[in-house]
């Protein structure tokens, strides 16, 4: 066994981004539509408390809730935290306080941001009011933030029908997370070798099977694979399918053949497209070799070598 040198770790940026589209139930729809109209709604529980922001089910009793009430846009800070360096997506881009605010007329508190000159200007119990966003769409961000307020206290919550023209029925909440993907030791070695147009597997010290691509562990024995083994470049089609659906952004004419290919010396088959032969002439046992397009870091496809087909017994364990 040749212990492989510790490879330089591969890393690449990975962005996961998705515009989550969520539908709203009657309570959340009324609340968010209300924000668009500068009206703050809570919901009254069966035992008389006012939950704000409102929810459809009482977190204490699990009763279904629908008794909407309007509360004041003014309230009291119940706790706070000074955030000196705002992060992407947060309500303000200058230092601000996160606050839980109990609006006048409500019994529970809303999380939001408080625009204040500094931490010394913030305390639990301070009075604040909503600063509305200039453009409101029916989202929690229609509240731009809270701001200090020294006016009169709002009154009791008053009943509200929750009915608005053109109610908001859903929200789109874009989310983006940035990662640095590192594939680890085994896959880094595999990818680096592939860039040099060689395919490297790793042998399990216990069952001697050669895994390609290697992931660093033998899934049968549950032990680390470490011995480097060059496999291929030629291989055998063990099984295949004919693809008749054209994938978006994929410049391959249909029908084409997608196959399991056991590279010579490998203990299991990997996936690859088979080209250079009419799709209806691809068969189990066909001998193939990789075709690299220019500058490519992995084989574009596999083509027949012209050798006689492999005997079934030589690859039946790899199906």
């Amino acid at each position, binding site marked *: 066994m040749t212990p492989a040198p510790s490879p330089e*770790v591969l*890393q690449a940026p*990975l962005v*996961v981004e998705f515009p*989550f589209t*969520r539908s*709203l139930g009657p309570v*959340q729809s009324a609340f968010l539509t209300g924000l668009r109209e500068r009206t703050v709604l809570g919901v009254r529980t069966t035992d008389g408390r006012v*939950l*704000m*922001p409102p*929810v459809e089910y009482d*977190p*204490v009793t699990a009763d279904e809730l629908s008794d909407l009430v309007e509360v004041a846009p003014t309230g009291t800070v*119940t*706790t*706070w*935290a*000074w*955030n*000196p360096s705002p*992060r*992407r*997506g*947060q*309500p303000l881009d200058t230092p601000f306080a*996160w606050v*839980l605010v109990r609006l006048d007329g409500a019994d*529970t*508190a809303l*999380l939001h*941001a408080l625009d204040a000159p500094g*931490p010394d200007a913030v305390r*639990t119990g301070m009075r604040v009011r909503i600063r509305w966003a200039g453009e409101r769409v029916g*989202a*929690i*961000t229609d509240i731009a933030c809270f701001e200090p307020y020294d006016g009169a206290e709002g009154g009791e919550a008053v009943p509200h029908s929750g009915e608005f023209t053109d109610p908001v029925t859903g*929200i789109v*909440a874009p*989310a983006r*997370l*940035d*990662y*640095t*993907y*590192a*594939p*680890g*030791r*085994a896959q880094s070695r595999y990818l680096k070798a592939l860039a040099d147009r060689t395919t490297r597997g790793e042998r399990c010290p216990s069952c001697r099977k050669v895994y390609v691509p290697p*992931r*660093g*562990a*033998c*899934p*049968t*024995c*549950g*032990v*680390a694979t470490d011995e480097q083994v060059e496999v291929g470049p030629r291989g055998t089609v063990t099984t295949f399918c004919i693809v008749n659906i054209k994938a978006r952004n994929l410049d391959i004419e249909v029908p084409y053949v997608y196959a399991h290919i056991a590279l010579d010396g490998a203990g299991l088959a990997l996936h690859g497209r088979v080209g250079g032969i009419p799709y209806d002439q691809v068969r189990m046992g066909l001998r193939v070799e990789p075709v690299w397009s220019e500058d490519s870091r992995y084989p574009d496809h596999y083509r027949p070598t012209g050798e006689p087909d492999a005997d079934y017994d030589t690859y039946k364990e790899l199906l």
Partner: protein
Amino acid sequence: MREVAIVAFGQSDHRRDSAEVSEVEMLMPVLHEVLDAVGLRAGEIDFTCSGSSDYLAGRAFSFTMALDGVGAWPPISESHVEMDGAWALYEAWTRLLTGEAETALVYSYGKSSPGDLREVLTRQLDPYYVAPLWPDSVSLAALQAQALLDAEDAEDSGADERALAAVAARSRTAAEDNPHAQVTGSPPPEALLNEPYLVRPLRRHDCPPVGDGAAAVVLAAGDTARRLCRRPAWIRGMDHRTEAHSLGVRDLTRSPSTRLAAERAGAFEAPVDLAELHAPFTSQELILRRELGLGEGVRVNPSGGALAANPMMAAGLIRLGEAAAAIHRGAADRALAHATSGPCLQQNLVAVLEGDVL
């Protein structure tokens, strides 16, 4: 009720960045450590259960890759929870209680290094009212800490900034004896109070380190446990409870779910001599101590706790493992282990472990 015990525990050396290894490469030495400790091979375990989160890796079904490390072929009986491994242990425990299995392997892991953890964790929040504001995990903990400092009974509970610093200093000093810890050693509390705030009222020492790590335990029932371990850590009771997801509904200075879980786990039936609390923020230890009624005589987090190493999805399982390991080596007779998940101690699990009288 059938007796079930933790018979082996292992963990990785927790580090800020482990880019040179994949999840399974990080996990595998830990799996081998616990299996070797009980002399079993992967295929001889009856049930396997794991905890992890796709959001840390930024890849769907990332846990399936880790299955390579447990030898999932030929097929094994396996399950996964998308949260801390402490909850995977709970699932395995119930499986053993039913008599369907004699042994179980529980593992969990998390690599926070690929992403920005404070942003990643916003994705576990209410998606309508809270997540669109992107409140990061440290800020939410800071809201809880301020609530504790401002509470009417703050004086009674001893909650002031010096008390928070004392938790940090004690934990990280204790971690000097823990070879796996990510952060060890600390200036005295008074010196810590001169540090700037990270998110007021929390300073850096009030917050857990961000890092990568893995942990694993082996569970066994009855005589099998006695055969595999000289002094099994018997699970006398275990329970987990959750609270409302809306932070503004909860009294952030209390943790009724922890108290209830502890009561149902039998924690109050007799005093414990050791407690491993999963309190990633200093203020949370004060809250947990009060709910659990832990007196001065109880050794809390001799491992250093989550303030010394907090690998996401593994730190709770590590609390169970550290408590069990103390029993294994005779350093504790009756221990309490706690795990938390979610913002501001939203979900809490409590287990009571005991060793046989030697």
